[in-house]
């Protein structure tokens, strides 16, 4: 029977693995180390991966590697913000709006980095990776109900940034 290879199944999720690790670690060096170790583990256990979701499987290995390596760090690391700017083109926005938009992005980034890791990761997995609740439950190793309640609390914690960002997003808040 045709066996799918590591290259086909696991390697394509390298960006997802790094993005997740980077948001957990909040710095490049630790994130790279963790992903590299996670891939070594993934190679070792690849034969045990059956028909499951390879991305969720890999991300759960990334998570376990991170918490195995930095058990205490997850909670108490100081947030360092290097002022990294978002350089994606702001399609057709005038310069002033662009500045406001960039400030908003930075504010959201800081708010997200300041969240406890349990809340931060659900937002990253949901909004940046587009994982379903079921996949997130696999990655984090908790029931789906827990995923949902963490997402709810994480979003509620971010609500205060809305007030300051309305101008930037052009008033998307109209209620139908």
């Amino acid at each position, binding site marked *: 029977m045709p066996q799918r290879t*590591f*290259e086909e199944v696991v*390697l*394509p999720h*390298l*960006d997802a*693995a*790094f*993005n997740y690790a*980077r*948001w957990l670690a909040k710095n*490049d060096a630790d*994130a*790279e*180390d963790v*992903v*590299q170790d996670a*891939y*070594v583990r993934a*190679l*070792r256990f690849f034969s045990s991966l059956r028909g499951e979701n390879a991305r969720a499987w890999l991300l759960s290995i990334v998570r376990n590697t991170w918490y195995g390596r930095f058990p205490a760090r997850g909670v108490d690391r100081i947030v360092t913000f290097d002022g*990294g700017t*978002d*350089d994606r083109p702001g399609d057709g926005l005038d310069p002033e709006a662009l500045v406001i938009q960039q400030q*908003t*992005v930075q504010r*959201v*980034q800081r708010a*997200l980095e300041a969240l406890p890791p349990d809340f931060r990761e659900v*937002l990253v997995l*949901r*909004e*940046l990776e587009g994982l*379903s*609740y079921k996949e997130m439950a696999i990655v984090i190793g908790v029931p789906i109900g827990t995923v*949902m309640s963490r*997402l*709810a609390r994480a*979003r509620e914690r*971010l*609500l205060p*940034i*809305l007030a300051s*960002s309305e101008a930037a*997003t052009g008033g*998307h*808040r*109209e*209620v*139908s």
Partner: protein
Amino acid sequence: MKCHEIGRVLDAYVDGELGPPESAGFEEHLGVCAACSRRVADRELVGRLVKQVPYYSAPDRLRVAVLRARKRSRFTPQLLALAATVALAASLGGVMVVRTARSRQAVDVTTSIAEDVVGSHVRALMGEHLLDVRSTDQHTVKPWFLGKLDFSPPVEDLASSGFPLVGGRLDYMVARPVAALVYKRRQHMINVFIWPAQEQDTGFDARSIRGFQVQHWTRSGMSFWAVSDLNEAELRELARALVH
């Protein structure tokens, strides 16, 4: 549904995780409750804002490191590797020569990519697959990549500098799909590989591998690798024309 029930499934609704019957009940309530509609709108706005934060793509050195780990696992089963290490340590009279893989990788990641670049250039020229899109028009080649890559490579015809564009193709390097542009000078073909970089802008790194010239530089968040059997000076000319 009532307001207090809405709160329980608010996020599931926003995330599209609610079954059809519950969704219908939810929306019915939204139609009559401005406060709950507002809660949904707020949730959705948080989602849109979070989606704008940086998505961190894996840097090239990590890609190379992972690919190497893969190669090691394929060609040297771990027990053999362990046996070899033990034998080596014994032959050195107990002197442990342990260099971590990671420190090596930092040094020669560029070399490793350059070798892959040459390999891909050679394979493409051996007639396997040089062009997916044949055109001297940058306005044809650039849109061709749309939807095939998660980035938009800069595409420029350099005919005025003496390097006419021949076309482009999709290639696969450092465990990711990349853009390959093909230029020509006289009878020499030049491949320029482009993919997103996390690194800062760099100068030109020139090297010669198996008789091929390789020029590497990073500009505006893109990593460029030009390779050809052209001489170094002329390949540098192309690199300069691309950077200008």
